[in-house]
């Protein structure tokens, strides 16, 4: 997809991303003694990136529009619990629907508050995060969660393919990628999102509908969190309430590594995909190298700070 992005953003997100991905792949291959590059492993990496990839696309939309969404991880957790909670009365379809409505609603609420008040986006989404986290415990009544339906009903559809377990997550991520790319790069709403992130006051004067654009961006981020919850349950079947909160860190890191400007107004979904793949590769390589998962945040934090330092330097 040829994306019309601007010069400085292009330098960063086109070339350095490809370069970055290549570097990461080489390092991953070395750390894992080649295990990483086996097709089976690559496919597993891709599938494991699916849920947080979806969340990252939503996060990227928000960051490009000039905000931050700290609620994404908790919205995933809340959606997971909502599916279980409403499944008992309305079946798995009803539960899924309820999760999507709740998560979307939380996003829309955040977008509304951000657009209509002077409260900074990070405070609003921090509030939503706290509420969603509590909701995830309340909805699941503090009990461990098991949802087998997604895996049972979807996995057999692809059983004719090798490693069939991984096909569904990859397809969903692909769908999310195409949808958000179309929105951001081929529709007028995408132009609004960029305009808003670059200069909100100027966007207002040329008639960009600020409220609707923010509702769209934050609502979509909530929606993608709900979809990520479905993918998560498909892959893991069980979860504890509050699980999924880590996606905040992952999505934020992927967005920054993917070349989205932290001040808003620049970045591409394709770049974010590269960021997602880089992070998935790094985590996969770390796992293969036997580094305990509790240390990953530290590694990702260092990467984020490095990327962000370079961005700040490039900004003149």
């Amino acid at each position: 997809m040829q994306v019309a992005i601007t010069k400085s953003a292009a330098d960063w997100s086109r070339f350095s991303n490809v370069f970055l991905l290549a570097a990461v792949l080489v390092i991953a291959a070395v750390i894992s003694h080649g295990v990483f590059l086996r097709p089976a492993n690559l496919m597993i990496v891709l599938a494991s990136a699916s849920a947080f990839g979806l969340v990252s696309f939503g996060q990227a939309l928000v960051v490009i529009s000039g905000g931050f969404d700290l609620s994404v991880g908790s919205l995933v957790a809340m959606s997971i619990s909502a599916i279980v909670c409403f499944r008992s009365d309305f079946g798995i379809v009803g539960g899924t629907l309820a999760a999507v409505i709740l998560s979307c609603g939380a996003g829309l609420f955040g977008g509304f508050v951000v657009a209509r008040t002077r409260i900074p986006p990070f405070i609003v989404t921090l509030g939503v995060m706290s509420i969603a986290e509590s909701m995830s415990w309340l909805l699941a009544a503090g009990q461990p969660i098991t949802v087998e339906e997604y895996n049972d009903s979807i996995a057999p559809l692809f059983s004719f393919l090798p490693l069939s377990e991984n096909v569904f997550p990859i397809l969903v991520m692909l769908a999310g990628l195409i949808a958000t790319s179309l929105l951001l790069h081929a529709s007028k709403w995408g132009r609004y999102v960029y305009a808003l992130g670059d200069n909100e006051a100027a966007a207002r004067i040329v008639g960009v509908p600020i409220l609707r654009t923010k509702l769209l961006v934050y609502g979509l981020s909530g929606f993608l969190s709900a979809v990520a919850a479905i993918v998560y349950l498909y892959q893991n079947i069980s979860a504890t309430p509050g699980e999924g909160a880590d996606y905040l860190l992952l999505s934020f890191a992927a967005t920054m590594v993917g070349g989205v400007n932290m001040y808003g107004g620049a970045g591409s979904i394709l770049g974010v995909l590269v960021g997602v793949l880089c992070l998935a590769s790094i985590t996969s390589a770390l796992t293969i190298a036997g580094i305990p998962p509790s240390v990953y945040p530290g590694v990702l934090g260092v990467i984020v700070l490095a990327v962000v330092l370079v961005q700040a330097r490039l900004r003149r």
Partner: protein
Amino acid sequence: MTYRLELEDITKEYGNTRALTGVSVAIPAGQVRGLVGENGAGKSTLAKIIAGDVRPSSGKVKLNGSESSYLTPATARKAGIGIVHQWGDLVPTMTVEENIFLGNEIRGALGALDKAQMRRKAKAVLQELGVDVDLRATVSELSPAHRQVIAISKALMLNCDLLIVDEGGVSLDKKETVLLHAVLRKLRDQKVTIIYISHLLDDVVALSDEITVLRNGALVETLNARATTARELATAVVGHEVGATQHALESGAAKTRGPLLDVAGLSWMRDASEFSFSVGEGEIIGITGPEGAGKSELLRTVFGLMPATQGTVTLGGERLARRDPRQMLKAGVAFVPEDRFQEGLMLNRSIEENISLPTLSFQSRPFLRKGTLRDSAARKADQIKIRMASVEARAGDLSGGNQQKVVVARWLEDGYRLLLLDEPYKGIDIGAKQDINDAIRAMAIAGRGIVVISTEFVELIGLVSTLLVMVNRRIVAVLKENKITPQEIVRYYQYEVDDPTPAPENARIAPART
């Protein structure tokens, strides 16, 4: 005779542009020296050089008769030079006393603040200046004049005896101006040298002993204020080379076809001042006046960016009650904001995106037709002669003039009926000004109504058929066609300053209104 400050042959270049060319000024101690000139004449550059904020490219600086090296903010402060910047150097959330001593506190035992002594000193200074302000009041609660006085007190606390006051009189009302003048006169009587920079010629004439006039970065002359009228000063400021005949209105081009915009009794303030004017189809009207006169506020209130306290705006017979940018654009009114960085451009986006945005906002098709957008943006860019590599180039990489053209280019087509432009000539070169004016004329010929605000009224001469002059948040004159000359305009640039003890010469100041 030794002078407090002498500048000899000062030149300042920024890249290729010259802000000052060989300026020499000598100011004796205990004088109020007025410094006047149009925008871009070099007043603030000169002030910054004296305050040490800017280093001259060449020339000599002498203090009290002996040559000094170029000043830095620190050495300037040590040499007793203080500056009161246009918008003050005060922290609005802090109290008067805290601000007066900020960065210069008096300490007592154990390094703790000696509050009693600070209060005493602050009180003494304010009393000396004849101003009664509560030391515990928060600065954001003070009137503009009192803020100026506090900023002056702050400078005095650093033992300065050469004070630069940059646009001190702007946005003060009559009573406040009298207060500020009284304060500055008291300081002069205590042998403090004052450099007073202002757009308001009457203000300068009333206060100063001598007045230095700058034009295009060069010294024009230094006048004795006692023997000068505001009108003479106006002539010196604008120069003689600009005559009305040079820019004769291209008649026929601006034939008015019918009424379009009617602004009646509009205001954004709580007091009684209200504004009324109207614009016809194909008519270009201008609004000028010194900085801080309220021109921008008026236009922003019309467009709905500021809430109106009273009055109506009618477009083509239809009253526009709820005004916000989207509503106004739908009604066919577009706005070019004063500050292209703050409100005009998406600097990191392409020229095409910047131009296409309003077009997109009002088309129902959700997906972009990139070819069409590119062609239409390129067409608009061509019309207003934007110099660029391609429409895909980043708007932030353009020169100032071309950036401004991008902001105007958005509105060239798509059937808008009225265009409001707020300071479209700010910080751009002559060629770009010409191109923008050509585009404005073309739009007027096509039947649009246009309102242009500019402090640089020279650009409006020959463009507008009606010119409103605004001073101190009031329309003081409505000039028509061949009455629009620099001399006529500047005649209204004055306050009615009621000097409690008017020097006899001051009586020669031309009356404010005819």
